């Protein structure tokens, strides 16, 4: 009995002290979704906590699962690599805006070909992933790379086995440059690939490409940098050959028509501009327009405002591209209408 009484008193004291502690800070701002944005969002959350003492708690569970949690109202914001449709936003009373950009790079492992040596254009890339171009010395590849000695070995196509925003953006690009791809395969976080085989996660893709001679795949830029993988240049929509760099990714985000689009629903693949990298990707943040807890929602918006204004350096350090200032101004302007911020 004595033990139980002691325990009850202890629990009561703990509850009271927790309540007091909770009152002195605002509740945590919770979010869930895209794993693409996770490294930079975590970094921002650290900086934001140091600056304001407010805590942002993000679960990197995948875009689809993040939206599911948002709809179940277990988190304040969701983050997704695939923008929500106008109808879905309307139906659930949500608003979205782009938070970060990055580049997706075509990677390869061909004996005797160095990183950065190869050039692809949209049509040949679609041909390879459709299974129409099956050897590395195909005339189409030779024509694009007259100075590179290409072997006659078969091409092994590797793709992301798990559903991912990277796959969504890559297949979105192929759909834009190849009508045949659009008709036969289409674009989503996972598709039925006509050739090749899958590897799990970006790490799995990196490992598999390194292990498989004659392989080609696509992966986020930071993995190519970290693992010193082979990467290609690409011919963009303006017909110029560009290198994958943070500058060309930024050009893609800057040249996209954010202002003219409803709900910022722009996929930044195959965008215009001489310097534009053709396969860029963005992550959107989704919030309720009329949230149950307005203070928390405003807290989240304050965090994103901080990230737009002070977070560029963190983004660059992690090989991401911050949303250009011109675009973030448009976004914050839209908050007045969507969330009633001042």
């Amino acid at each position: 009995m004595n033990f139980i009484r002691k325990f009850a008193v202890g629990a009561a004291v703990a509850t009271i002290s927790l309540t007091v502690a909770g009152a002195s800070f605002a509740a945590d701002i919770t979010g869930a979704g895209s794993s693409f944005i996770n490294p930079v969002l975590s970094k921002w959350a650290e900086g934001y906590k140091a600056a304001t003492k407010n805590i942002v708690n993000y679960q990197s569970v995948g875009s689809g699962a993040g939206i599911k949690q948002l709809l179940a109202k277990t988190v304040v914001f969701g983050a997704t690599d695939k923008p929500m449709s106008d109808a879905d936003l309307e139906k659930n009373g949500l608003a979205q805006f782009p938070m970060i950009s990055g580049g997706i790079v075509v990677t390869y492992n061909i004996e005797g070909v160095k990183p950065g040596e190869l050039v692809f254009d949209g049509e040949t890339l679609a041909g390879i992933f459709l299974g129409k171009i099956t050897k590395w010395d195909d005339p189409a590849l030779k024509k694009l790379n007259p100075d590179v000695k290409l072997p006659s070995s078969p091409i092994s196509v590797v793709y992301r086995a798990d559903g991912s925003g990277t796959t969504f953006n890559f297949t979105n690009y192929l759909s834009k440059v190849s009508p045949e791809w659009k008709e036969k395969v289409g674009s989503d976080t996972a598709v039925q690939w006509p050739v090749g085989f899958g590897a799990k996660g970006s790490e799995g893709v990196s490992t598999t490409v390194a292990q498989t001679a004659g392989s080609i795949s696509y992966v986020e830029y930071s993995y190519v940098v970290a693992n010193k993988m082979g990467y290609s240049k690409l011919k963009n929509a303006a017909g110029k050959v560009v290198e994958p760099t943070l500058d060309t990714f930024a050009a893609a985000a800057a040249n996209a028509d954010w202002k003219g689009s409803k709900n910022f629903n722009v996929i930044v693949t195959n965008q215009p501009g001489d310097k534009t990298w053709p396969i860029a990707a963005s992550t959107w943040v989704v919030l309720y327009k009329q949230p149950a807890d307005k203070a928390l929602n405003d807290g989240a918006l304050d965090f994103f405002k901080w990230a737009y204004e002070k977070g560029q350096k963190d983004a660059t350090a992690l090989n991401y591209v911050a949303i250009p200032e011109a675009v973030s101004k448009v976004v914050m302007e839209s908050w007045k209408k969507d969330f009633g911020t001042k």
Partner: protein
Amino acid sequence: MVDATNGADFSRVDVASITKTFKLQDRIFFFMTLASAALVVLMLLAILVVLVIDALPTFQTFGLSFLWGTVWSAPTDHYGAVPAVLGTLISSLIAMLIAVPLSFGIAIFLTELCPGSLRRPIGTAIELLAGVPSIIYGIVGLFVLVPLMQLYILPFLIATIGQVPVIGYLFQPPAPGVGLLTASLVLAIMVLPFITAITRDVFLTVPPMLRESAYGMGMTTWEVARNILIPYTRRGLVGGVMLGLGRALGETMAVTFVVGSVTRLQASIISPSTTISAQIANTFGEADGLQLSSLIALGLLLFILSFCVLALAKWMIGRSDSF
């Protein structure tokens, strides 16, 4: 109290009320154990109900054609179960073909032939093998087995069996290392300790008299295993094999790493493929709407499949009673 222990005065003890207390205690105990047992059944039913409800949109959209559909395409929102179900069945079947003879061999060695000093270490090694987490098998499979398969084993199979008519059809490229056969090998290693442990234990239940008589009559070890051990323990062996099969059917992590995740239908057993559990593990996080429902429908099929395996095992055990 002192009086009672001396056994002198029973008249002060109310026998009826004590019996009543005991009866009540027994009843409470009965209902508590009943509740524990009922929880298992309820849980099973709850899982089934949730699976059926969440899978309903898929069956409403595709009807039963989901069961023989061969396309799995999120952009067109069209889903069929055949590639994943077939991959699950074939990979488990090959794994059993490899693991069962090996397990029986190990068990016979351990119970009949092994010198006493080796028995403990080998037995412990097998038990440790059973305790290795499946993610480890996945990683070792991806980093060690896949390159070996890609560079040596699969090219050899294509050059030899691949050239034989009819059977050769099952050994055709593409063979990038990951694939059904690789997954089957990993599965075989994973189920090996389970089948071995059960097989060894049931072999040990054979009465020494039977065994000694057989040896005494001049039987060889092979004849003892063939004519005494296996027939005598048939029920337990079937149980062990089915337990291994159940594990192989549902194994997720290790298979996801090495199966190659291809949802196209292919005849070759060395080419990349997919299984139900790998398909779910890969695409569940990003799936929504009809795709999510179809993944749950796949889960329901796996549930039914495992149930059938278990039912079949029970039936076979029942039949072998009459031997």
